[in-house]
């Protein structure tokens, strides 16, 4: 009894953190691919960094009093919202540092001041996203009513097409903002094979977290989903490949990639855009 209770407690806590991080990724990922923020972060004075953290705390605190990222709600208590605010900002900082490291905007040679500036400026939209996590995609309460519906056994292929369509739409919504910009080329130039592999792993993990772990709306529905790729692992991989394909098409559409470009260029550009496209695709399958 005691062991079971303790396991549930940690399970619930980890789910809350994952949900917050996923909300952060949805909100913060476009700005992570914006070189103006990298530059401004590189130049920021410590006074401005302190001010950014203070203002961020106030705004996230206000958001946490109404929504926040936790499934269990007692946010009406001021100190609880304050505690969640500290956690939201910390989640934002850690996730931003991780992605900036992945994109090679943070390296071991980056100076302390520059690293702090970039991380703090990028974590502002990220922490806002953490605080808005429940607002973005709701929680599992809404979908409990649908559990009673009988599964449509004849619609396996239809369900698969619906999944692919939702993934493409979600990927397009997020990545369309990034595909025409120069950031993809700059990041692709700075990356190397080990970091590209890390990018693939991160895309898959984040996608899985958003759809199957975070407790967002329609999650129960997704686990019961019919279709060719109905297992969580195969659905995650399928949606990643679909997102990569959508990313490549967007890059071609904006003439960032042409058929005369070498295949290695197609590969690294597509992988770089694949991270936001995959996050968008995962959100699409929940929201659409």
């Amino acid at each position: 009894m005691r062991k079971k209770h303790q396991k549930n407690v940690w399970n619930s806590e980890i789910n809350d953190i994952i949900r917050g991080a996923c909300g952060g990724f949805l909100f913060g990922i476009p700005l992570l691919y914006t070189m103006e923020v990298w530059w401004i972060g590189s130049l920021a004075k410590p006074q401005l960094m302190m001010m950014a953290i203070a203002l961020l705390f106030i705004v996230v605190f206000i958001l946490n009093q109404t929504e926040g990222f936790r499934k269990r709600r007692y946010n009406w208590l001021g100190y609880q919202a304050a505690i969640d605010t500290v956690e939201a900002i910390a989640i934002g900082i850690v996730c931003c540092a991780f992605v900036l490291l992945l994109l090679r905007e943070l390296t071991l040679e980056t100076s302390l001041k520059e690293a702090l500036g970039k991380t703090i400026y990028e974590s502002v939209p990220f922490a806002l996203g953490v605080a808005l996590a429940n607002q973005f995609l709701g929680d599992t309460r809404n979908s409990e009513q649908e559990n009673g519906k009988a599964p449509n056994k004849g619609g396996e292929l239809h369900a698969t097409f619906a999944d692919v369509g939702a993934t493409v739409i979600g990927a397009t919504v997020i990545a369309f903002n990034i595909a025409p910009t120069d950031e993809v080329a700059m990041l692709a130039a700075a990356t190397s094979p080990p970091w590209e592999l890390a990018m693939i792993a991160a895309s898959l993990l984040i996608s899985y977290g958003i759809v199957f772990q975070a407790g967002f709306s329609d999650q129960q529905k997704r686990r019961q989903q019919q279709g060719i790729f109905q297992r969580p692992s195969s659905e995650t991989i399928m949606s990643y490949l679909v997102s990569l394909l959508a990313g490549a098409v967007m890059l071609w559409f904006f003439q960032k990639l042409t058929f005369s470009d070498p295949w290695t260029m197609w590969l690294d550009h597509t992988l770089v855009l694949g991270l936001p496209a995959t996050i968008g695709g995962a959100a699409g399958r929940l929201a659409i």
Partner: protein
Amino acid sequence: MTQTEQQQPERSPAEWITFTVASFILAVIVGLVGYTWLNDNNQPPILSVSNKETIKEINGQFYVPFEVVNTGGDTAESVQIMAELVINGEVAETGEQQIDFLSSGETEEGAFIFRQNPGQGKLTLRVASYKLP
């Protein structure tokens, strides 16, 4: 029943541990910002350029690698680096490079390309200018 529902639910140990870790992370970040604030002595950028690597000849062109470092305090913007190759007392070839940002302690690398062998003349590398943000 109403009284039970309004009772404040306790934070679980997992939540307290998470809060502790989050507080630590935030404290470290704020501490580091404070540290850079205290050490921010408004020292101007100090820029120096050097070519430590060997000059390479590829397809009839000579590549001169260089690296520029900012050993000062502030970030330098639009750092301009000039290369001048003098052969037989005349300026034979020149090169120019610009680096967008060079933070304190940061090093950037690049290369100048010449058609004539720099070994047969005198090569000068220098930082020509920079802009403060």
